[in-house]
């Protein structure tokens, strides 16, 4: 019996991406990329290489300037209200969290659930409690985001993205502002999500992360890509990354230089 191939979660052909602030300015051009369901991709790039805009376009927050992009088989150029359910199969974690500062952590996490399912606040608060406990956020649940550290804000943003139980999760530089203990927690937790976490009923999750430092993401089971000079280069496995002779890649793999006085 022949094995049925995984359906492509993300399928881009000749895609060009405009900047979020000015769509006419192209940050990435000519992307051909395919992500099968259940894959874990790490996209590396230097600062201002267009990683965030590329990831936002991938999440369906903006349409490509050129080319065709199918998300779970649906062409995103035609995304509207009717296709919202398709787009919500993808969760998005912004760099820095981008939480709503006027709401508490509990309210932030509960809001998508409340809005999508028209739940009363008490019912939504009850529903988010297990996730808050899972993310060790329960003691901070009634505090507003400006009053907690970057580490916890980023974790609250992850909880907010997971509350709707997406099938794929896109994370924009999730380790960028984290301290050592939190960094380890994130790597372990993302690995559990990728393998199939109980929160998502054991279903393996498709993950795409961007980073400016490849070293923490070293893993034989992951796939890697590089954004450089407005081009997207799928690299393959970790071995391919290490063997590639690209100066930017070397820089992203190198120990950062400490300035000494």
């Amino acid at each position, binding site marked *: 019996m022949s094995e049925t191939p995984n359906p492509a979660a993300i399928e881009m052909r000749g895609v060009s991406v405009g900047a979020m*602030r000015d769509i006419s300015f192209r940050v990435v051009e000519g992307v051909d990329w395919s992500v099968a369901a259940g894959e874990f991709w790490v996209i590396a790039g230097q600062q201002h290489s267009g990683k965030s805009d590329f990831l936002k376009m991938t999440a369906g*927050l903006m349409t490509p300037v050129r080319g065709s992009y199918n998300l779970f088989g649906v062409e995103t150029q035609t995304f509207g209200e009717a296709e*919202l359910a398709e*787009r919500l199969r993808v969760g998005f974690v*912004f760099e820095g969290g*981008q939480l709503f500062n006027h709401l508490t952590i509990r309210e932030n996490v509960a809001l998508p659930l409340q809005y999508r399912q028209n739940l009363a606040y008490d019912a939504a608060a009850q529903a988010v409690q297990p996730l808050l406990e899972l993310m060790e956020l329960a003691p901070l649940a009634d505090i507003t985001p400006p009053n907690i550290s970057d580490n916890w804000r980023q974790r609250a943003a992850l909880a907010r993205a997971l509350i*709707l139980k997406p099938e794929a999760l896109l994370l924009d530089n999730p380790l960028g502002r984290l301290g050592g203990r939190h960094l380890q927690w994130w790597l372990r937790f993302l690995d559990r999500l990728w393998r199939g976490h109980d929160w998502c009923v054991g279903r393996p999750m498709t993950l795409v992360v961007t980073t400016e430092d490849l070293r923490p993401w070293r893993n034989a089971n992951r796939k890697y890509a590089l954004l450089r000079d407005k081009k997207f280069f799928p690299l393959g496995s970790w071995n391919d990354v290490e063997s590639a002779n690209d100066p930017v890649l070397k820089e992203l793999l190198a120990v950062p230089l400490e300035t000494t006085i």
Partner: protein
Amino acid sequence: MTLCYAEAVRGNLAKAFKLMDTQLFRRAALPKSYTDFLGRKLFLFLLTVQGLAAFALITLGVILRKSGVARNVIRPRIRQEIARAGVALLPLFLFVALALGFLVIGQTVSVLARVGATEYLGTTMVIVVVRELGPLLAAMLVLARVGTAHVIELGTARAMGEVEALEALGIDPVHYLIVPRVIGMAVGVFSLTVYLIIGALASGYLFAFLQDVPLTPGDYFRELVGALGWLDFALLALKTIAFGFFIAIVTCYHGLAQPLRLEEVSRVAVRAVSQGVIVCVLIDALFILLYLVA
């Protein structure tokens, strides 16, 4: 809807309304002639009107289409906005009603009584307070107190990426951020205008009474009631709701519809308040025409 909205913001406002060109116009060198200057101002004015009209239509569309969506989220937010644009301003409006009564109405009553023209009292009060001064003053105060807060809150939310976060979560930013503010401000301006008018007329008589004006409370209120017609009530309601709606539209448009950097928020707030004043005066002029025609 979120993508439709995103398209509306980035597509309609950046392309159809050519806001990028608007920025170019603002940065362009000083005009060489007055005709250039006037033409540029007129063009900018038309672009702004177009943007505001589109934003108002988008908001109206969302109010109508999504009246039953996420009620458990939107209704508490509407209540919050009514409290902010209405209930929280009551002490200020009480003070302004007393001041208006003492400074303007009391003196007018006093002068009319002194020259024996109390039969014009009702008409004068209705034209000055009920039709003009009350609604316009209420709208200006709400614009200053709440409208500026709208621009700053929404501008900051946009600059901090909270609007993108709403879109990512499948929450329509117009539905979540704008609709409660528009409804709250429309209800707030209407209610506060009613309180302001009642307070000003009552305190005005009190001032006249303290000056020993020979006018009984019965005669005073009989004159007022006699001068009021059903049209005054209907147009007062329409006018104040229109004030509230358009103040919210102008302030929310400037706060939300354009991508902002944090340092731009204060400049945009000033521009929104100026345009809010102009819009209120234009609406007022339109209602004067309606009164004249009716």
